[in-house]
Each structure stands twice: as C-alpha cells, then as structure tokens.
C-alpha cells in the first residue's frame, strides 16, 4: 500500500500516533509505578483495561449512565479490582520472590480474560462517543473531538499523578519505597498500604484508559492482553520504574507503530514495540530513562 508522503499526511499520522500513545501511556504509567514500588510485573492491568472498556459499554448502553460518569466508574472498578488483586494474590507471594509473582500476574490475566469471554461473549464492541462525529480541522489535519478529549484527559491525569507523587504524603511514601525500600521501612512507611495504593492508582489509570479508548477502538475480551504486552514493552523500553520513561516510551512506540503501519507493512506493526524493546535491551538495558537495578 503506497501512501502519499506530504506534510499534511505525515502530520495526520503524527496526530493519530499521539492519540494511540495516550492509551499506552496510561497503562504503562500504572505498570511502571507498581514495578517501581513492588517489583511486580502486573500483567493483570491489561485485564483491568479490558474491564474498564466493558464497564463503560454496559454503563452507557444498559445502565443509562452518561459517558463521563461511566469513565469515572471504570476508573473506580479498575482501582478496586487492582487493590484486591494486589492484596489477595501478589502481596502474599512477595516472600517467594519476584519471578513467581510475574507468573501469578499472568494467571490473573488469563482468569479475567476468559471469565470476560464467558460473560460478555467474544463479539467486538464499540461505545458511542458523547461528542458524536465532531472534529477540528486545521490545514487538512483532522482531530476528532473525542480524540481531543482523550488527549486532554490523559494530560490532566498525568499532571495529577505527577503532582500527587511530588506533593502529597502518600505520593512521597511511594517514591520513598521505590528509591530505598529499607530506609522507607525504617522511617515507618507501611509497605502493604503503600503497595495497595500503587495497585489502586495503576488500576484506576488502566480502567480509565479502557473507557477512554472504548469509543475509538473496538474491543473484545482479548484486548487486555494486546494492550498490556505493548505497554510492557514500552515500560522496558522507557526504563522500568521510570514515570517519564513510560510517557516518552509510549509516544515513541505509538508513533513508530503508526508510521510502520502506514508506510512499511501493516502486518508487522505489532512487532515494532517488541523490536524497540529488544534493541533497548541490547544497547541500553536500563531503558531510555531508567536506572539499572542494583
């Protein structure tokens, strides 16, 4: 498939790429947060993204709830489930070492994905956007109202997260846990509680991302696995435990993916994230903006 190589087309793909990046970034942020604090690779976050999408679908279609309330509901669902998951499955496993929690996380993803397949069926769903087909257009480059809303909402969430981590007491406890777990324990930080908080925040972001993307990207119960694998590659590429790394990584991967699909080969676009990850592992194993584990 040949595509025109002109400024407008390239800008349009750039806009689309950035939009795709928002979904990845929200999930990757949660992953990197949990990883930084607890060294758990929480694959179940993908299932929370998927469930967030379904919550928004059923809340708006069957529950008569407005879309924005549905997004909030999806975030709450994600946060509660993630904290539950963390408390019941992962924290008790900490004593066995990190690699087993990783396997357990994949087990949770498998359970939730197949339970969703059972309850919701395998049909692809799409949630109608509250903005309809409205779009902005500047010099031929198009941005739909929904895309603009998602970009704005993601920006707000990232800012909130940043401010929360920087200025609030629980945020500081999270950062302390990530930097010096032993010292954090010495000054009296409750590891279990901080850990559960990290899970809840991440789950909220993942559930919200699912609901935000639901009007644009058709989903079925398998979407969680697709999203989480890419987010994971992004986290490794950007640097495990690094918040800026997750955002920059998401942007790089989403743009690379969009342009690969447009100009090179659509069937290999899904491999781009993993290719970048492998390159990073060879050339810069700590990731783009990460620190090496000590």
């Amino acid at each position, binding site marked *: 498939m040949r595509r025109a190589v002109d400024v407008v087309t390239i800008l349009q793909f750039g806009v689309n790429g950035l939009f795709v990046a928002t979904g990845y970034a929200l999930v990757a942020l949660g992953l990197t947060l949990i990883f930084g604090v607890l*060294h758990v690779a929480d694959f179940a976050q993908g299932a929370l993204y998927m469930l967030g999408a379904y919550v928004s679908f059923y809340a708006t279609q069957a529950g008569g709830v407005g879309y924005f309330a549905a997004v909030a509901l999806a975030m709450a669902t994600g946060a509660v489930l993630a904290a539950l998951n963390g408390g019941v*499955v992962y924290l008790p*496993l900490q004593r066995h070492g990190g690699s087993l929690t990783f*396997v357990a996380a994949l087990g949770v993803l*498998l*359970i939730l994905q*197949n339970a969703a397949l059972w309850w919701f069926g395998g049909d692809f769903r799409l949630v109608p956007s509250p903005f309809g087909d409205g779009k902005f257009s500047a010099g031929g480059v198009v941005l739909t109202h929904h895309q603009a809303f998602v970009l704005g909402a993601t920006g707000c969430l990232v800012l909130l997260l940043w401010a929360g981590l920087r200025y609030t007491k629980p945020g500081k406890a999270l950062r302390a846990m990530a930097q010096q777990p032993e010292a954090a324990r010495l000054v009296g930080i409750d590891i279990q509680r901080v850990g559960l908080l990290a899970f809840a925040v991440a789950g909220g972001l993942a559930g919200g991302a699912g609901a935000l993307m639901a009007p644009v990207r058709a989903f079925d119960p398998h979407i969680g696995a697709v999203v989480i694998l890419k987010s994971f590659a992004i986290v490794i590429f950007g640097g495990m435990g690094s918040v800026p790394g997750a955002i920059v990584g998401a942007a790089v991967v989403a743009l690379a993916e969009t342009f690969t699909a447009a100009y090179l080969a659509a069937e290999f676009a899904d491999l781009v994230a993993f290719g970048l990850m492998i390159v990073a592992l*060879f050339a810069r194993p700590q990731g783009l903006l990460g620190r090496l*584990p000590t």
Partner: protein
Amino acid sequence: MPGAWVGLALLGALVAPVLLRSPSHQNLLVLTAINVILVASLDMLIGLSGLVSLGHAAFWGIGAYTSALLVMRAGVPFLVALPAAGLAAAAAGLVIGYPSLRLRGHYFVLVTFIFGIIVTLLLTSWVELTRGPMGLPGIPFATLPWVGGTEVVLNTFQDKVRYYYLVLVVALLTLWVRSRIMGSRMGRALVAVREDEDLGQTLGVDTHRYKMGVFVLSTAQAGLAGSLYAHYSTFLAPETFDYVASFDLFVMNLVGGAGTPLGPVVGPVLLTAVRDALRSTHPVLGAVLFGVFLILSIQFLPRGVVGVWDHLRGRRRW
C-alpha cells in the same frame, strides 16, 4: 536420589504402550514424553539455576518449524533435521540469552516471555514461510535408516508405539544430561547462581558463562522436542507454541517439583492428559481453572508434588 523410584518410573515408561492400547491413550503417551523433554530442559533453568523462563514453548516452536520446513522445502532427511532443529533453537537462545542473562532482577523472565510473544507473532504474520494462522499441514513422517540400506518410515497414524520409544530415548537422554549436569562443576556453579549470584561471582565463578551454557543447552533440547513434535503430529499451528503453552510447561514443572530429580517426569505425567482434555472440551472454562490452579500451586506448592512427598517423608531437598 531414590533409585527404586527411578527404576519403577523407567519400567512404567517402557511397558506403558503395551498396557495402553487405544490410539488416543498412546497419543497422550507420546505427548507426555515430549512434555518430559520440555519440562526437564526447562527445569535446568528454573529448578537448578533459578532462572524463570516463560518463553520455553517458543524455542519448542522454532525447533518444530525449522525441522518441518527443512524436510518439506529442502528435502533434508529427518536425522539431519532433528539436530538442526536443536541448533536453530539454541541459536535463538544464544541471541536472547546473551543480553538478558547479563542483567539481574526480572529482565530474564520478561525477555523470555516477550520473546515468546514475538515468535508467535512472527509465526502468524510470516505467511509465505509458515502459512501463518492456516497452519502447516502435511509434514512428512520421520524416517530412520535401517539395516541393509533400507529406511523405516515412522507412520504415526498407523503405529504410535515405535515413535513413542523414539521420543522416550530422547527424553531419557535429556533427563540423563540433566542429572549429570546437576552433579557437575557446572551444576554447582548454577546452584550458586540460584542461591546467591553475588557470592558466586566473588568466589570467582563466571556466572554469566554458566548461565549462557545452561540456557543454550536447554533451548537446544526444546528444539529437539519441537522436531519430534512436528514429525509426530504432521501439522503445526502458531498457537501450539504461544505463551499459554509456555505457561503449561511452567506449571507442569512447578506441580511436579522444580529442582527435584523426578519432578520433570511427575508434572507431565499428571497434567498432560488433564490439559489436553480441558483444551479440547471447554477451552474457556479450562483457562479459568488453569489460572486458578496456577495461582494456588504457586502459593501452596512451591516445591510441587515431589516436594510435598519429600516433606511427608521427612526428607529435605537434596
């Protein structure tokens, strides 16, 4: 190591196809033996060295496709394709292992896992080579040279017993290699990696070299299992080697008892038939149950059935 149990297991493996005469039971026997190769090779990583690999099925798949394509497209005889499958998987192991084994922490488990995803994606997308999601049918049966220049064709549709013994030979060799390594200098170095890598390095053990060695060996054995699988089933599809398959192997190893002498035999014997039945009758419910079972066994059976048995008998890990 309880020699009596090993003897009993060996006897059971030898007479099993005589006792189980129906083709479906014999099919499960062959699959179990292939799983023993896979789990025994995986356990050299997990049980012996503490390196959790979640991409083992990908190396199995590389071996399977390499062997099948070599025989189908290049007319290579089975006895050449079998080691070639091992070499191809080992080469992939070398490329993946070199960077990821240098790093501590969770890099290895993440990289092996994502490598498994990449292999499945490649097998699915590279349609010209692998026929992608349609699968690769019509893989020729294995042929072995026989006395007087003749050839024996191991037609697994008509006779699974001979093929079972072929797989059994490779499985026994794999188990033998594993037990030899465990008692060797390399095995002790790998136990050092598992228990305290820093200490091992301080004492002058080149841990990276030993980790690379065991990983390449393990992936080579998975490749051999792939070739054996390809010429047994005569049909390959990418999803046979996906991350859920890697999971299955991990769980078999965990349930059997990682790092125990007979664990890699016990796990596949207990679970191959169960997994096969679940996957074919109710895949969705099967996956849910499998996930629950996985989490429960990680929580409560960290050393598997063999570990529980040893515990009941008051024995410690050797």
